[in-house]
């Protein structure tokens, strides 16, 4: 039996493990507050809170229930709007703020916003207005124009900052113990081995929605062994089921990538980042996979494993029993469109990249029709190790100012930078998406850059090489000419961002 807590109710169900949490709550439990807008994680109307024990504390995150297999609810606390409504038609502070600011018109998307904002308030760790708005970056409203919802979010961020008012009902206090008990029991579905592996499900459930619910699958999402991010000295080791949010919150990653938040904000939305796993992004092999392009530019390696499947992958890795494994460069995983250098029964278990030494610069660029919550027309990442003259007293320019803040360019030379400074590239890795059948490691461009001085000529020459490495096609995300032009511009943007003087 598959066990979890739904609002204040303990659930034990033999519903198909591949069916969605959305269908379960709406049609099996008749909890109609959770709405269906798109069934592809793009509107947020079906957002629920998912509570799990992390370091023995209950941590809630928002997820889109339309893409969430029931198997991924196992051992968790699933919260729908019915699970936070106070009795007697009273309102929580989140609901009250939405009413007071007229943040609801037709009301169909409203519950999703309420759940996202409740997640923000319950979390309480980041109580700025910016983060409150960030919490609703996955919710689409077609009526309000968002300004009223924005006002509600800002108001809530101010409330969260000064008080610990109750955002959820009292029964939440019992959840920690109940989740501990669940963890002790066998709460996962009995899944026969299948080489259909499901991580967060955020693309599988979009592409193959109808088929997934009845498919036998091996669910990997909540395998704790696959969810660590570890500083292993020379390398950073990352478990395959680490989500984008896990990366975003990781001290190890933040220490290496000062612009992590700014860059990862460009990747889908909060609820999807809470679900989407790194390995899922890699094996999905989308030519425009954001995280794939990111890790290609880190020249990451992966470990492919063939676990013994009796008892499931989790048991196997927990016991450390793995029949075979092999390592390879991520860039060698991709053979052609959606073709991988991987056996069907192999899974990625870990990902590692070399911790940058010396003066390291990283940048990620992505342009789509809509800046956020969209799929790239073209994305690209660059990782540079550089040497700058004159000497060590030179202070690298601040990288953290997003170009849109105030819309002002860095002055020539940048803050702390100087035109007189000469930068030499010691090593470079460049990757791009949307310009080839695979997420593309730009090998020749990367090799060319090594040893070059950063200047307009180098960038122009590198672009020439880059253009010869890519083969974009015209599709709904842009024409081939546009993608070529866009990659040229984004390549240039890397240098503008990193060196502030081009």
């Amino acid at each position: 039996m598959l066990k979890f807590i739904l609002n204040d109710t303990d659930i034990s169900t033999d519903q198909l493990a591949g069916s969605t949490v959305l269908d379960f709550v709406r049609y099996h439990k008749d909890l109609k507050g959770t709405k269906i807008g798109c069934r592809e994680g793009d509107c947020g109307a079906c957002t629920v809170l998912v509570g799990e024990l992390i370091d023995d504390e209950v941590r809630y995150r928002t997820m889109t229930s339309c893409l969430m297999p029931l198997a991924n609810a196992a051992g968790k606390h699933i919260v729908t709007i019915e699970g936070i409504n106070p009795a007697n038609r009273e309102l929580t502070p989140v609901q009250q703020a939405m009413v007071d600011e007229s943040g609801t018109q037709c009301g169909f998307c409203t519950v999703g916003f309420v759940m996202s904002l409740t997640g923000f308030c319950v979390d309480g760790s980041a109580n700025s207005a910016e983060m409150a708005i960030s919490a609703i970056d996955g919710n689409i409203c077609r009526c309000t124009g968002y300004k009223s919802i924005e006002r509600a979010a800002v108001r809530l961020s101010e409330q969260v900052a000064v008080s610990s008012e109750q955002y959820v009902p009292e029964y939440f206090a019992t959840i920690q113990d109940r989740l501990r008990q669940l963890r002790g029991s066998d709460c996962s579905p009995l899944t026969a081995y299948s080489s259909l592996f499901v991580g967060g499900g955020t693309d599988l459930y979009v592409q193959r929605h109808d088929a997934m619910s009845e498919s036998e699958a091996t669910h990997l999402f909540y395998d704790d062994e696959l969810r660590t991010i570890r500083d292993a000295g020379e390398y950073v080791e990352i478990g395959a089921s680490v989500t984008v949010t896990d990366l975003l919150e990781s001290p190890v990653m933040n220490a290496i990538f000062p612009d992590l938040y700014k860059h990862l904000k460009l990747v889908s939305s909060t609820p999807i980042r809470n679900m989407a796993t790194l390995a899922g992004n890699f094996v999905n092999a989308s030519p425009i996979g954001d995280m794939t392009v990111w890790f290609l530019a880190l020249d990451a390696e992966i470990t492919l494993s063939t676990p013994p499947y009796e008892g499931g992958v989790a048991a196997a890795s927990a016991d450390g029993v793995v029949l075979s494994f092999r390592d390879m460069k991520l860039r060698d995983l991709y053979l052609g469109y959606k073709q991988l250098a991987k056996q069907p029964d192999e899974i990625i278990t870990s990902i590692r990249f070399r911790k940058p030494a010396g003066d390291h610069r990283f940048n990620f660029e992505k342009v789509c029709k809509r800046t956020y919550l969209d799929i790239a027309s073209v994305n690209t990442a660059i990782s540079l190790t550089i040497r700058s003259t004159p000497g060590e007293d030179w202070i690298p320019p601040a990288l953290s100012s997003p170009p849109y803040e105030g819309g002002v360019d860095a002055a020539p030379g940048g803050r702390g930078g100087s035109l007189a400074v000469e930068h030499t590239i010691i090593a470079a890795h460049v990757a791009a998406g949307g310009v080839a059948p695979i997420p593309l490691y730009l090998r020749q461009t990367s090799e060319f850059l090594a040893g070059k001085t950063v200047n307009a000529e180098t960038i122009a020459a590198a672009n020439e090489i880059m253009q010869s490495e890519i083969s974009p096609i015209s599709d709904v995300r842009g024409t081939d000419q546009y993608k070529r032009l866009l990659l040229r511009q984004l390549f240039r943007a890397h240098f503008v961002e990193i060196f502030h003087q081009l």
Partner: protein
Amino acid sequence: MKNIDSTSHVRGESVYLDDVPVVRGTLYACVFDSPVAHGKLKSIDTSEAEKSEGVVRVITAKDLIGENQIGGIVPDEPLLADGEVHFQGMPIAIVVAESEELARKAAKKITVEIDELTPVTDPRVAAANGDLIVPPKKFVMGDTAAAFAGCEHVFEGKVEINGQEHLYIETQGAYAVPTENGGLKVYSSTQGPTAVQRAVCRVTGMAMHQVEVDVQRLGGGFGGKEDQANAWAGIVAVATQLTGRPVKYALHRMEDMRMTGKRHPYSADYRIGLDRDTKIVAYEVTFYQNAGASCDLSPPVLERTLFHCTNSYFVPNVTATAYCCRTNLPPNTAFRGFGGPQGMFVIESAIAHAAEKLGVKAAEIQRRNLLEDGDEFPYGQIAESDAVTSWTQADAKYDLAALQQEADDFNASSKYFRKGVATMPVCFGISFTKTPMNQARSLVHVYTDGSVAVSTGAVEMGQGVNTKMAQVAAKMFGLDIGQVKVHTTNTLRIANTSPTAASAAADLNGKATQIACETIRKRLLEVALPLVEAASVDELSLQDGYVHRNGEKTSLDWQTLVMDAHLQRVNLSEHSHYATPGIGFDWSTAKGHPFAYHVYGTAIVGVTVDCLRGRYEVDYVLCCHDFGTSMNTAVDLGQIEGGIVQGIGWMTMEEVVYDENGKLRSNALSTYKVPDIYSVPKEIAVLPLETTRENLAIFNSKAVGEPPLMYGIGAYFAIRNAVMSYTDCSPAFDLPFTPEKVLMSLYRS
């Protein structure tokens, strides 16, 4: 006054179509639709689907008992394809099964044999082929041919206007339940309950009095459920008729996007003539409307394009011609603005073109040509204009020159970023242009406990119309709004409704409610007369739950008065009718007075373009808007903010893409982008126009649903101005201005 649904919305307790509790035995429908855009339908093989698990019935055109027709204006739209298919997504067969999943699974087993014909997707090609749905329409004022000859400057060009997906977050759907003696109750997510009732009756052969249509509320409509809810109601009605069981169909998003029409794309040619003072002397425009495969509401949409082809400007010589072109796309339909925005975009493009060539700001040309009181519209109505006042008040409040200077200064110092500013005046006529539609009914009951129930023909879809109806009754009876309940829109209670559209629902239904309440109020005051020993009802009023005499509160409270009236056998219910006075239009001369009034406003839009990446942000939309006297500022502000953002979406990121075979490429939320919270203007400011004019709106509170959408048009021109300030280019007037088009414009060389 907050929207009365706010509390149930935030608690997730509001009921939408898919939340209506299903009756035991309910079946689920799924449509099999055409995989090609144009062809001869030679055969349909449903045998595998019929054998599929849980399937109760598969229905094709030959099974219909009624007429296979749902076209409202022109009978050119079969419910199910018969003999030919005219667009990809055209319904061919209905699978009815025990569950939604089983119906969906079975529908995939249907196969068809189609001899493909060449699809037409370009309205100009359709026009050249003579494939027009209705004869061309034309507005003429003055003599453009003669006027152009005397013009100092003449410019001409071409404009391409894209469609727009409604993307109501609640998809289309309907649920039919059989009632006794062969009747039918249909729950529908529709803006037009009567249109649904008519369509259901037509395809089932039932009489209208046998069919009850009930609408609780919509999860957004925006015009997309004005006429296009009919098909789904027709489908479940037919399925119920043929199976004898309740049948429900709530569309999946991709089905909805694929099978329903959108805002009409247009292609247009303009010619504009100005004198040496940049007064517009002559304007000639030809519109090619991409109507899609059948008529739907295309002709009235086309007419409104003509009505608004000169926007807020007085042009003495106008020739405007419009073609309603049949193509192999899903039938395009109503969308907030109803053709008006397309008409406005073309003249704004013409003005931008002239400004660019003459080296002046478009705002200068706009300002000089604004309508004044007494000016004549090309369709003969005389303007009571607040075009100039809204412009002047916006300028006084926001300082257009300073905003322009701020942008210029920024642009002089920035390497990769450019700011652009544009002004967008709006003049939008209120009333259905088809005069007979400007009527409404309201049913008001006062119960003996003093509570009040109101039913009207208006459909609540987020615009707050039910709140306004409750406000009308509460104000008329001097009650708290909590004592008024607005009930579902139901064809048994309110018959022969006009759709909730044209921004007119609050006016029409509000006036009808006002009349009903006034009738009851007068009866109650007659009852009160002896009780408070007044000489005349003129001394009496209802306020704060008490009868007042000469403004002084008496001891007679509302509930006592109501009970007394009932005991005296006084009628506490009223069903009233309202028809907008003084309007009419004669198509034989294309002149008349079609609108009860116009809504005016002026917006200033500022953007920043990242010229390195081709992205942009909207910094502000600052407007002065003509509310008349708003009866609900919270609701009306929400309409303005929402309308502006929807308009900006249409101008920028919302790109409906069909390929040359008529297949929708932007067929999901992953490929069709509407604004998210980061896409909206950083600032939206709304200054209410100061005016003392009387108007025909309910409580003088002007219609607000559609006009603000057109402020969003300013975003296009602001982006264009920013792009042109970065590099020497002249971007084509080709919507939407996606980041792709921005970057390609910036680096065309």
